[in-house]
């Protein structure tokens, strides 16, 4: 089925998320929609899927104008969507999720689960996935959940399939498998829209590429285009894709984590007996697919987890059991993985956010009173130093772009005397320019002799920054390998396997070999 979007415009208040976007997707092609976070890709697809109503423009399927009042209409017209955040009900089985919304029934209005199971198996065998129709979705690994999403779309005879950032949650191996599936679907005649900001994937699978920047189509490209070409189209200027980093000169071990376990509220070992060291002047990256214990590990170090067992020693001082403020006083700088939830108060100004974790003593507070003039001077200085672009330090942080928000977090954490810097997903959801800046500051921090931990699910970021890489899988560290380890090996380790030819090591000497 041929999909055509003509002049789609969508406004949110004064913000134009989509500005007269034209797009044609032919049957049997994979059309990549490439753009930075916030470029308007997801908005466009939500318009296509009937979740938003376009302010202007039209959607055509096989040259017929369509009107979608809701997702139901879009589905009936043959559009299927694999959402970035899966639209699956965790406590339902696979079959129930697949049948939801177009249930078949038998006598007395009973659900015909047998038919739904058969449908799951039929579609599954067609594409070679083996999904148990009776498994509960919440028990399935993320990669399999995504297949359930695909089956769900196909069970409604989708002819146009939209994949919204499908690889964000997958291991490299799962990503490869997804690429194969997308190829199969294309060969079966499905039109595919593939939304992403990852250049490598686009070049690997796409037949055509449309690039969106700030809500507008800025160009088309062939899959043969280079990374640098694509990146400069996406960002609007030429960008540096590699991180400049000198060879590290690690010193003494500063942070020693030994047999650390974190138990969650229902008694699961979300972090399972983890041991590692971080030395002065080195970056240890903690890699792994989202949800393998990295979040809990970083929260354990900063003091946010309740049930922590084992030892965390920073420069000879134990951090286990200390309150967050004591941990901060001990010299730990922390960039939380979700800055909007944990890092910033959106309604507060840039200046106020810059003193959030130093609100009980000098220099910001004297005798219980805020030192506003000092704060303002400080904020002006930091905003300049960290290139926070805004209409002034009194702007509420919530109004800044993701990249500028992250710079505020970074400015606050790096302006203290640090003994350890812990950055979780430091570049998540920020623009390429800010990514460059954040990476530069992280490397500078390392070069100043501070031990750095970077927790990241982005393999590119891990390999760009790390001196050593610890890979986490299901709460344990699979192994700690040198920073120049190949993506293939890291990908395998992210699935819990240790390749035979790799000797993992926790010692500096091993890392420097």
């Amino acid at each position: 089925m041929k999909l055509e979007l003509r002049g789609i415009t969508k406004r949110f208040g004064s913000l134009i998320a989509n500005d007269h976007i034209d797009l044609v997707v032919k049957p049997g092609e994979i059309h990549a929609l490439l753009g930075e976070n916030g470029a308007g890709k997801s908005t466009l697809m939500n318009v296509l899927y009937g979740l938003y109503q376009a302010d202007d423009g039209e959607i055509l399927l096989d040259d017929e104008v369509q009107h979608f009042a809701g997702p139901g209409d879009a589905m009936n017209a043959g559009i299927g969507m694999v959402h970035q955040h899966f639209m699956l009900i965790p406590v339902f089985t696979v079959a129930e999720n697949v049948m939801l919304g177009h249930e078949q029934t038998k006598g007395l209005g009973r659900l015909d689960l047998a038919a739904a199971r058969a449908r799951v198996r039929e579609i599954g065998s067609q594409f070679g996935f083996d999904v148990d129709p009776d498994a509960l979705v919440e028990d399935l690994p993320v990669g399999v959940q995504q297949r359930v999403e695909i089956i769900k779309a196909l069970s409604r005879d989708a002819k146009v399939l939209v994949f919204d950032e499908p690889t964000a949650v997958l291991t490299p191996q799962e990503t490869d498998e997804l690429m194969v599936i997308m190829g199969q679907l294309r060969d079966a005649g499905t039109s595919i829209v593939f939304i992403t900001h990852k250049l490598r994937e686009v070049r690997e699978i796409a037949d055509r590429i449309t690039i969106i920047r700030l809500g507008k189509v800025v160009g088309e490209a062939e899959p043969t285009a280079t990374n640098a070409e694509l990146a400069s189209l996406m960002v609007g200027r030429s960008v540096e894709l590699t991180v400049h980093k000198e060879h590290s000169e690690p010193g003494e071990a500063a942070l020693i984590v030994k047999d650390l376990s974190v138990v969650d509220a229902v008694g699961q070992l979300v972090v399972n007996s983890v041991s590692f060291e971080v030395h002065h002047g080195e970056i240890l990256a903690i890699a792994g697919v989202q949800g393998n214990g990295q979040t809990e590990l970083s929260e354990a170090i900063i003091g946010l987890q309740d049930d922590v067992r084992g030892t965390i020693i920073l420069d000879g001082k134990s951090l286990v059991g200390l309150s967050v403020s004591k941990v901060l006083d001990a010299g730990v700088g922390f960039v939380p993985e979700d800055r909007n939830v944990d890092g910033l108060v959106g309604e507060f100004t840039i200046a106020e956010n810059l003193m959030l974790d130093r609100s009980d003593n000098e220099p910001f507070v004297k005798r219980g009173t805020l030192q506003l003039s000092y704060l303002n001077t400080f904020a002006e200085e930091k905003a300049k130093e960290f290139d926070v672009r805004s209409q002034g330090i009194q702007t509420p942080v919530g109004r800044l772009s993701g990249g500028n928000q992250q710079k505020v977090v970074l400015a606050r954490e790096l302006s203290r005397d640090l003994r350890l810097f812990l950055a979780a997903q430091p570049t998540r959801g920020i623009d390429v320019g800010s990514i460059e800046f954040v990476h530069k500051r992280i490397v500078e921090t390392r070069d100043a002799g501070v031990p750095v931990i970077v927790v990241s699910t982005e393999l590119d970021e891990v390999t760009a920054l790390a001196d050593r890489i610890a890979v986490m899988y299901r709460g344990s560290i699979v192994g700690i390998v040198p920073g120049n380890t190949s993506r293939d090996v890291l990908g395998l380790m992210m699935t819990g396997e240790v390749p035979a030819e790799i000797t993992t090591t926790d010692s500096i000497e091993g890392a420097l070999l």
Partner: protein
Amino acid sequence: MSDSMNPSGIDTGVPDVTRTLDSSGPGTATQHERPDSSNGLATTIVKSWKAPIGFAVFTLIALVLFVILGRDGDSTFTLSADSDLIQLPDITVAARLTGIIVTVLMAVITVVAFLRVRADRRVPLWLTALLGVLFLFAFLTWVDAGASLPVQVPGLLVGMVSLSVPLIFGAMGGVISERVGVVNVAIEGQLLGGAFVAAVVASITQQPLLGLVAAAVAGAAVSFVLAAFAIKYLVDQVIVGVVLNVLVIGLTNFLYSQVLSKNAELLNSPPRFDRINIPILSEIPIIGPTLFRQTIIVYLMYIAVAAVYFALFHTRWGLRVRAVGEHPQAADTVGINVNSTRFWNVLLAGAITGFGGAYFTLGSVGAFNKEMTAGAGYIALAAVIFGQWDPIRATLAALLFGFASNLQNALGIIGSPVPSEFMLMLPYLLTIFAVAGLVGRSRGPAASGRPYIKS
């Protein structure tokens, strides 16, 4: 019941080792055979000492009450009424001896519970139930020791069902409403509104059935306000619910004193439903009089519980209701209209609860009184949570609360040594313990209480 159809729908996630009151209910066995590693994480047992400590407290009470303060004399339990076809003989036991034996048994159960927890194992629900029944038996024996009147077991049970009817209807309304994602604190108001309207309509028309229908309409009307504010205007659901309860109390009080009490003959003397004996079934000893010599409202309740259970877990309607309450956005993306599903089902929940209100005026009391629901709606709400949002378990929980309420009546007749004020407190005390203590963390519908706003 097939394996795939999860009958409770809620008890399925991560193996929950802290839960003391585990589901040994129907059909859940398969869930627990799933290996703990289903999501790949090792588990460590978070030991929960709640159950054994609770057991120990009750054993201690038993020791003090039944042994140290034990009363001599015999206690008699009557199992059949004179009118029954099949007569069971009375049971007579020696009070102090029974107290000693029961206390010893309870101590054994407590030790078993301690050992199980120490060995990182769960304390099963049946052990808790056994302890409860033993304690209850000893308590009744102690109360009746030397008394001239026997403990009427059928009377105890009939009273339990009678007091449970509004609770069960309310719990059904609560289950549906919460499953679809709207917290229904307004059960109390729906019951009271139903009771009031049923009395008035049945009095004027002299048709109890019309009163019943009117009660459902009244319940739905209260729900309409809840739904409108919670779904359309996004007001906090708990606050709307509480305000509605207060509003209905105020409104019915006002109308009662200004209108009803002045024209009691015309407006507040509804005809009551007659009891209907179901042939054969009503002659089964104990069960017959308890369940099958009831009014049409009670039979309607049996149908309601079965229907809600079947519909919630085996029909398209139920699948969609649960989907909307768990993950409204996912439901939206497959073409289900979240807000209208919520709206209509909250109305349905109100209508079902309304039937329970009618039972006050058309089934048991026979006239409307000020604030006659006396907190039944809140207890029904507790039954929903205690029953883990499952219609069958919520019904059992409501029966438990009904039994606790009725105990006071039964003991009053015998002449209890326990002050009646204390016994009046019992159902509420039980509610608090049940919800706070025993359930531990139970998982409700994920999106319950959260309005769905399309971005």
